[in-house]
């Protein structure tokens, strides 16, 4: 079957503090790390809070809504998967919970992309009990 040979999206390493981020995504839930000591959310996931050093880090549900901080449209790629996807949008999203994460903006005309555009999360199943959070125009 041709689909068996189709290159797949590169998957994240999960032997790190971010494993929950990907596994919760498989349940269609977006979570971000929050320090229960200083009360601040942060990105990216680390075992200790990068603001105060506390090891008391928990996950909080994010609304999945945010705004485009900045973006680019990738026109060429050497990666076997992304080569089949050009042109595609890579963006930094300011989540309403106060952290900024990288994503692809999908299901949105590339020419509609702009800084400040409101976006919402969706999830792409990736197998192995994880999913990849993506965003689209809200």
């Amino acid at each position, binding site marked *: 079957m041709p689909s068996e040979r189709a290159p797949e999206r590169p998957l994240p390493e999960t032997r790190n503090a*971010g494993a929950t981020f990907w596994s919760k995504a498989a349940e269609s839930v977006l979570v971000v790390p929050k320090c229960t000591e200083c009360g601040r959310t942060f990105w990216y996931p680390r075992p200790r809070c990068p603001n105060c050093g506390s090891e008391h880090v928990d996950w909080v549900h994010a609304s999945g809504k945010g705004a485009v*901080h900045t973006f*680019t449209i990738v026109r060429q790629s050497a990666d076997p*998967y992304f080569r089949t996807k050009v042109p595609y949008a890579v963006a930094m999203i300011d989540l309403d919970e106060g952290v900024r994460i990288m994503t692809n903006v999908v299901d949105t005309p590339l020419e509609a992309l702009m*800084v400040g555009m409101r976006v919402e999360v969706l999830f792409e199943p990736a197998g192995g009990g994880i999913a990849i959070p993506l965003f689209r125009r809200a």
Partner: protein
Amino acid sequence: MTSAGALSAQVAVVGAATAGIGWESRQNVAEIMAEAAHRALADAGLSVRDVDGLFAVTPYYWMPSVTLADQLGIQPKVTDSTNIGGASVVAHVGHAVRAIVSGQCEVAVIAYASTQRTDAGRLVTGADLLPYERPYGPLFPISGYAMVTQRHMHEYGTTREQLAKVTVAASEWASLNPEALKRGPLAVADVVASPLVSDPLRKLDICLVTDGGGAIVLTTRDRARRSGKRAVSVLGTGESHSHCYMSNMRSYTETAGVQSGRAAFEMAGLGPKDVDVVQIYDAFTIMVVLGLEDLGFCAKGEGGAMIDEGIGPGSRLPVNTTGGGLRYCHPGMFGIFLLVEAVRQLRGECGERQVADARTALAHGFGGVLAGNATVILGRDR
């Protein structure tokens, strides 16, 4: 504690050289680094036997200064392979100054080389993406700089044409530099018509991919005086890094060049108005805009307007007088070429591209996606 100012003008750059700049290499990276070191030492009237401090970086070896020592056949007293990306060798200058002033070593070589063009035809780097980035396919480092450019345009109204003028100025300088690999003229229209790679960056907003290496030699003021060469003093140095990964950039429009630049100017007891010629790492056009702003040559957001005023030959503030990474050469980490050119300008060795009466030069390196920052201010002895 010694104040940084006490370190100013205690160490001199007495040698500077390049090696292996081109599209195809028959030598390997260690050989080109060593050749550059030998040439820089000859330029200083010194030999490899005098070297007791070795500073090197390259993406090619696990222990660059150790590899270089093998190639040169020396056993240094001070060794440093610190890697903060393309700013590394600029940071090494500050490290070397402190090693020399404290008496740890007397003659220091700083060297770099890469044969990325011959080996890969593209950037050779050990840089990694975060697990939170790799699934999304950003081009490293191009998409990072593209998003920086997009945000700068949004916040400050920096224009497509202003960015193009950075490349045009680089092409004007390169046409005056016999060592430059791209010497042909370019107009704004050429840049804005070149293919998009990662919006808004186009092919001609992005540096060349070449081979090449370089080295400089530093020593004490006393020894420099005895050498009889026109010495160039290290007046100020600074370094910082604000993040490693794109996902951890607190600002997409301001760099840790603010900190490294301030440290260098404070050590030198100088300000931006005292600088006659500037070298800012220009792997992407936006880096010159950010460098001018963050080093204090203009206010934040006014970098584009400063480009409009002109940074090419004959301008009030000549920037990247070799043609830079955009048009001169770009073997992956451009820092050493910023330093070599700053020295050559202060010695008056630059022929057609010489900035008249250049007495003070600044070199600023960036590494990664604006991650590593290092600034050096050099001055011609009166």
